[in-house]
């Protein structure tokens, strides 16, 4: 029950597809409370990732994730760029040199990514950002693994928590990022960054579970 380099590559490729499929949707969400570019930015970023992955496919997982982060950092822009750039770079640093990851290493990796996002963006749960998805999701994964659940079961729980966190952003009044300018008008809309984070985590689970 480990996450191999092949899994990681499959995950990233599938994220690129999922983001492309949800480009319009994420942009629409951002149009409601932001500036209508989140889907466009993320899609541009993951296209860049896809064009750079071939150069590091035979490297270790850490290198692959760091390359992903750097590609995002230099192509996404906006708030999403530094945040997701940091997320993947920190994950890469946390698993430097590895060719496969145990469930505990996956957890460590995700926690390192989240720490980076929080350091960079200073958001807390409830601010109506991607942190509202990432924090409960990764905490749930930690709890599930601690409680001895199977990895795929633990991943299911993580994704359920991610979805809950994402949906919980709907009633919130934003306190970070561009949506915060809207004040009360930001309530009633789901946060685009929380949504893209959900897609990334759900895709991790899906890739892992669908592997042969």
């Amino acid at each position, binding site marked *: 029950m480990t996450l191999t380099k092949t899994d990681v590559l499959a995950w990233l490729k599938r994220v690129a597809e999922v983001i492309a499929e949800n480009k319009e949707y994420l942009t629409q969400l951002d149009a409601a409370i932001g500036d209508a570019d989140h889907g466009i930015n993320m899609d541009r970023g993951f296209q860049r990732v896809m064009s750079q992955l071939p150069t590091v496919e035979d490297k270790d997982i850490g290198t692959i994730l760091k390359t992903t982060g750097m590609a995002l950092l230099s192509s996404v*822009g906006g708030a999403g*760029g530094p945040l997701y750039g940091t997320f993947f770079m920190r994950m890469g640093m946390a698993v430097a040199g590895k060719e496969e990851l145990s469930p505990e290493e996956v957890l460590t990796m995700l926690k390192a990514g989240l720490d980076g996002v929080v350091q960079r963006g200073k958001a807390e749960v409830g601010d109506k950002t991607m942190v509202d998805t990432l924090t409960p999701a990764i905490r749930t994964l930690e709890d599930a693994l601690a409680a001895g659940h199977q990895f795929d079961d633990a991943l299911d729980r993580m994704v359920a928590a991610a979805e809950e966190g994402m949906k919980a952003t709907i009633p919130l009044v934003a306190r970070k*990022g561009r949506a915060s300018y809207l004040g009360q*008008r930001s309530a009633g809309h789901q946060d685009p960054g929380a949504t893209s984070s959900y897609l990334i985590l759900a895709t991790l689970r899906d890739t892992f579970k669908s592997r042969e």
Partner: protein
Amino acid sequence: MKKLINKVENVVRESLEGMALAHSDLIRVHFDPTFVYRADAPVANKVAVISGGGSGHEPMHGGFVGVGMLDAACPGEVFTSPTPDQMLEAARTVNSGAGVLYIVKNYTGDVMNFEMAAELAASEGIPVQNILIDDDVAVKDSLYTAGRRGVGTTVLAEKIVGAAAEEGRDLKALADLCRRVNINGRSMGMALTSCTVPAKGSPTFELGDDEMEIGIGIHGEPGRERMKLKSADEITEMLALAIIEDDAYTRTVREFDLDKGTWVDVELTDPPFQPGDNVLAFVNSMGGTPVSELYIVYRKLHEICEKKGLRIVRNLVGAYITSLEMQGVSITLLRMDDEMIRLWDAPVNTPALRWGPGSTAALSKPLA
């Protein structure tokens, strides 16, 4: 979507290519990563002033690169902050050794990308300072928001700080000056129409024929409040009074401490306007509003300033910080001391602002 563009993906690039061709006497454009820079960069012994932000605000920032203003500008995709690699490469290109001042508009994305760029530049030994512009009084607090947005004061800061850099002022002095401009400038904007981000292809928001948005930023986003359309005088009064009667505004910003090499928190307070203040009045088109309407706004603004005892000593009326083709207006008032007036008056020669000795008609790249 009705725009004079070709492929949506090429909008930013082709526009920059056109600007480079039209202003080859003043600027150059570098791609991959993308930035606009002074044709004569690096200028020996001069601190380089760099700004940047999403595209769609033209002429800001690329139109302000040239003598007496910016050394480089980093354009992102439309309404999307540029990336640290652009900012770093721009700094490497225009740094004469005297260091780099990044003028950063306060948006989460811009702030984070410029912070990463500053860290990278500092790690290469380039002396660097980031100064934030956060002047939009439509955003009321900084506790429950990302803080005030950087809008109209950015243009004024780039001119004033650019002139001081041209005089040979050092990095610390320029950072102080830029901070001073920022805390003395306040803005507010409104929209009559939405705008259409090319990659999206449809208007960001829908507004009724008799509606307007008050308290917008510059990214085509809806504002603080939607209202029934009002007259130019009423709109001007709403914006001007929000600016003039704005209380002291205090917030904590992160600045790079050159000596310690780390980020430090700095508390800043904008002093409210007082009768007797000298101000620059800046009436700005959001892109699609013609100058004839701007003058109608200026007329009322002048009257209000007189009534409030503010002396308009300089003004700027035109489309300088825009949201694509959006119709609407923003007002900026900047309290000016004598030094700021002198620096504002100093010669400038850029694609979008030009006056004084040394300013020239636009030359074009001759045939190869």
